[in-house]
């Protein structure tokens, strides 16, 4: 494993774009924390201070921060894709295999990199949330009660990178892989809409938004459902308390996302094994 890490380190660390984008990504995460805490825009004469709304209160802060920074995963996703498609365009995948790296070891080295990216990003988000919570939370009780969202964040990233890896191995060009990601996302959206329309047609136009949707368990959707948009209650705003309602991670989505992660890793392996390079 140390050998695979050494190899990957040489490949990525000295690759200028990857280095710059990784540094930018982490600066961005830090900046999100600073911006959320210290920028208070005025809207219609009223100063909007999200700290006042209870955004940074324990235990809600874990979900809130994890939800906001999750979009940044695209950044690392691009690096993950480039890291694989470059091996195709440089012909180095072929050369690595000829030099005696097995296909399995190649995949392992890429997965290892992906999981390290996910782990470092998770640690970073954990630290930011903890610091902002200690500074701005109105109560220091139950600090770690919602910390499961940080675990969900790791699973979400690990899934996303595995999916990107699969697309990169399948399509071999970075532009196509990113396009593939976008197309997949659109297709999932269309499937969701179709399902809603079918249910509404059956129930004379009525639908329960909290009801069960199969499309919620599609790969990207299920990983998105790990960390939902925080539930809010305007009542809290009127009474001057937090408007956020604590919630928890839905274990069904943890299971389905882990399942998809394993599935895409397995598909990647099969693809690599069967393909003539």
């Amino acid at each position: 494993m140390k050998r695979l890490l050494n190899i990957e380190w040489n490949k990525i660390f000295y690759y200028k774009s990857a280095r710059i984008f990784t540094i930018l990504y982490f600066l961005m995460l830090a900046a999100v924390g600073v911006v959320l805490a210290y920028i208070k825009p005025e809207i219609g004469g009223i100063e909007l201070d999200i700290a006042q709304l209870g955004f940074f209160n324990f235990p809600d802060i874990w979900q809130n921060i994890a939800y906001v920074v999750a979009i940044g995963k695209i950044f690392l996703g691009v690096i993950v894709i480039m890291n694989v498609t470059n091996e195709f365009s440089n012909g180095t995948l072929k050369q690595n295999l000829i030099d005696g790296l097995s296909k399995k070891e190649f995949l392992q080295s890429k997965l290892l990199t992906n999981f390290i990216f996910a782990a470092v990003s998770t640690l970073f988000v954990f630290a930011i949330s903890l610091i902002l919570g200690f500074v701005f939370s109105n109560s220091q009780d139950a600090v770690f009660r919602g910390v499961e969202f940080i675990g969900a964040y790791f699973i979400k990233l690990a899934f996303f990178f595995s999916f990107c890896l699969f697309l990169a191995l399948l399509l071999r060009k970075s532009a196509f892989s990113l396009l593939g990601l976008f197309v997949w996302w659109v297709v999932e959206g269309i499937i969701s809409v179709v399902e809603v329309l079918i249910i509404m047609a059956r129930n004379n136009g009525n639908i329960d938004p909290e009801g069960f949707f199969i499309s919620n368990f599609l790969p990207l959707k299920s990983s998105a459902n790990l960390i939902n948009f925080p539930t809010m209650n305007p009542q809290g705003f009127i009474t001057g308390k937090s408007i956020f309602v604590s919630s928890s991670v839905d274990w069904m989505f943890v299971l389905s996302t882990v399942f998809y992660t394993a599935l895409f890793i397995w598909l990647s392996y099969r693809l690599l094994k069967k393909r003539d390079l």
Partner: protein
Amino acid sequence: MEKVLEIGHLTKKFGKMTAVDNLSFSVEKGNIYGLLGPNGSGKSTTLGIILNVVNPTIGSWKWFGEDPTTNSLKKIGAIIERPNFYPYLSAEKNLEIVAQIKGAAKHKIDEKLKLVGLFDRKHDKFRTFSLGMKQRLAIGAALLNDPEVLILDEPTNGLDPQGIIQIRELILQIASMGTTIILASHLLDEVEKVCSHVVILEKGKTLYSGRVDEMTAGFGYFEISSGDNHRLQEVLLSLPHFDRVSSENGNGLLKAILREDLSGEVLNKQLFEQGIVLKHLVKRKESLEQQFLQITKNQNG
């Protein structure tokens, strides 16, 4: 002789196209093997299979008498098609990755860079290299683990004459150290100059497999002319030594292909006894190139 590589009944189909067709040959230790064939004859596919990057349809092969694993690959150095490296890394860093994959010692990097004459450029990025330098770096990388076998696929392709000479000298130098070399090429001249053994492929099939010098084991032919070539041709055909006699295009020379060994002296004497005085008499053996063209032609016909 110790066998380094044995290929048995290897076949590879891409859809309907058969790239390698029931190919069998073996490579003995310490020789330079040429894998010769026109473009598209299945050379690269064969190398791809024995190097684990192409899956065979059927067939098997053995490295060093054992079924192939990634460990056997670590005892081989190979370059396929073009030099493949990370363009943004220096020569040294690129070799470091190869050394990590092969499990070669780090101090080998400088040693091999010196061997291929790139030691002075070791901190320069791969993308700044000329094609000849890239090719030499690839050979250096392939030699990192002091392999028992070196596989080169079209190593002089696209190089200028000076680069070609450098690479050929390097190959002979490596061979003199006892490394077995398998060289794929579509250039007869190259195989003739460098190799001791040759496997000729066409459309995925073996046409010839054996020593290069035994390939020219035919009895050769005479280039011959006299004042009256018609009469000469008649007399030649009446003698028992020749398969056929053909007039060559416009140069006034007949080409008499031998059926048995015969010296020029004996032929000259026999013809003189028949009343023919020769203007021209040269005995030749066909070059590999002509043989190669002939072999492929026979197969097509």
